[in-house]
């Protein structure tokens, strides 16, 4: 395909535009321009390719292109921001499946670049099947701990060997049949590996699948000898890999541990009877909040589930405007179910991104805060991560909410979080539990704040 020099140049421009589009995301000010550059790059690449197609009659190609575009835009505009992680997972899967189909078509066509095409098919297959599982988990179709059984790692290990064997068979004799077998076992392997993963490990796996959809594109690029696919795939692959790395650091687990070591589920065992817990009413909380000079709000996934982000913003603005309180939001990297999820949810609720702080930049400030308002979060505040080397959370970076003068926990019960570890902060002297639905409790606080 390289004899077409003008098309090659068009691809080169597209690829540069893609790089600029990601570079634009280094600041919210340039991000939107970046997205336009990305669209321009894609438009160039697709139009250039369409112009270079041989023959005359490409009606079907235009029709499918149009249909795909309509479906994509429709789903993209309709999806709720809380459902963002599963939507991105689904799109990753779709991209992976596209790579699989292109790879299969290469095999059907006859002598293909065997190694390259098999990489495209396997990684694309992993991205597809894994993303479907991730989608089902995030959408709540499957329980977070669904699909766990004893000797699971032995089973998966054996499955990995089978996968390698079928891969070897395909390389020996790359025909249709061996491609189907390879694809089939790839699907099974990917499902088996992602099925037991849930809850707080989800952001890691969504990132990994994102990377896979990129690496698959690179593999296909090698088999077609296409520079644009290779470069774009490499950039997307790098992006997903880096995000996965950031997420694993945020939960202090390695990718290996996410895949093969489950956190034990002992949740549901309340230890309230053993300790003294102080609980309060929304009115008490409102009184303390309005007299504070500085309040830090710590939202977690539970806040997103309860859809409390809008009322939370109302509370923040009433506090800052009516009572002149300095209100900040603190976000842990895994507060949502995908990287950056919580930032998007707060932005949707009109919280200015100037008031939103990442873990490293806010942690110092808890000691000068009068109140920490923890809503729908648990593990990401657990001090055992710093102090107890026996705890599964040990070493995970956490938000130091305990250093604030008063800590409010808005929670349904004293149950442990996803990790199954009890949070000693619940029993601390400066902690007040506000039991109930995150949205309801915050609504009641806002009512009291507005009356006074």
């Amino acid at each position: 395909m390289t004899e077409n020099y003008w098309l090659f140049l068009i691809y080169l421009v597209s690829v540069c535009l893609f790089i600029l589009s990601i570079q634009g995301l280094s600041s919210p000010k340039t991000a939107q321009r970046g997205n336009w550059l990305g669209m321009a790059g894609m438009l160039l690449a697709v139009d250039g390719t369409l112009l270079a197609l041989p023959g005359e009659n490409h009606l079907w190609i235009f029709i499918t292109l149009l249909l795909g575009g309509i479906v994509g835009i429709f789903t993209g505009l309709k999806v709720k921001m809380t459902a963002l992680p599963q939507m991105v997972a689904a799109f990753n899967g779709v991209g992976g499946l596209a790579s699989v189909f292109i790879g299969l078509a290469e095999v059907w066509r006859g002598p293909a670049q065997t190694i390259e095409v098999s990489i495209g098919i396997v990684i694309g297959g992993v991205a597809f099947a894994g993303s479907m599982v991730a989608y089902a988990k995030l959408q709540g179709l499957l329980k977070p701990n669904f699909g766990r059984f004893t000797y699971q790692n032995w089973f998966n290990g054996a499955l990995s060997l089978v996968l390698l064997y079928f891969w070897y068979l395909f390389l020996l004799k790359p025909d249709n049949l061996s491609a189907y077998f390879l694809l089939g076992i790839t699907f099974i392997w990917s499902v088996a590996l992602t099925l037991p993963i849930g809850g707080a490990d989800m952001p890691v796996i969504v990132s990994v699948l994102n990377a896979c959809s990129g690496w698959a594109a690179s593999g296909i690029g090698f088999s077609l000898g296409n520079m644009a696919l290779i470069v774009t795939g490499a950039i997307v692959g790098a992006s997903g890999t880096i995000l996965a790395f950031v997420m694993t650091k945020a939960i202090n687990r390695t990718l290996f541990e996410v895949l093969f070591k489950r956190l034990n589920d002992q949740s549901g065992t309340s230890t309230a009877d053993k300790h003294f817990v102080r609980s309060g009413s929304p009115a008490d909380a409102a009184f303390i909040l309005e007299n504070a000079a500085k309040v830090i709000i710590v939202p977690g996934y539970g806040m997103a589930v309860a859809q409390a982000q809008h009322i939370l913003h109302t509370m923040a603005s009433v506090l800052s405007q009516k009572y002149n309180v300095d209100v900040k939001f603190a976000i842990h990297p895994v507060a949502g179910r995908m990287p950056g999820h919580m930032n998007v949810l707060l932005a949707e609720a009109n919280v200015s991104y100037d008031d939103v702080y990442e873990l490293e930049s806010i942690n110092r400030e808890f000691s000068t805060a009068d109140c920490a308002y923890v809503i729908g979060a648990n593990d990401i505040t657990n001090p055992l991560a710093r102090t107890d080397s026996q705890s599964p959370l040990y070493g995970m970076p956490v938000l130091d909410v305990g250093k604030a003068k008063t800590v409010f926990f808005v929670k349904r019960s004293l149950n442990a979080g996803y990790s199954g570890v009890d949070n000693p902060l619940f029993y601390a002297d400066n902690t007040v539990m506000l039991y109930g639905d995150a949205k309801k409790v915050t609504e009641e606080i806002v009512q009291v704040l507005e009356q006074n």
Partner: protein
Amino acid sequence: MMFWYLLAVFVLACFIGYFVVWDVTPALHAPLMSVSNAISGIVIIGALMGAAYAKTFEIETLSLAAVFLSAVNIFGGFAITQRMLGLFKKKDKK
């Protein structure tokens, strides 16, 4: 020979990706995911070529399916990114 040039391109692209992505602010990690998802739809050019050069009906159908899927990916990815970034616009404070 061709393969080795492509490999060089691939490795250099990984480096570019590495540096560009570390520059992305954590607050925009979600749009990063969806925009990278959208541009990974670039496989559509392989699918388009495959469909146009197809000699049998089966290959054409398979390639068209790939065109459809990557079109969903591209349009959907850019649409979601656009929506998200719209939320990050500067808000009037107070």
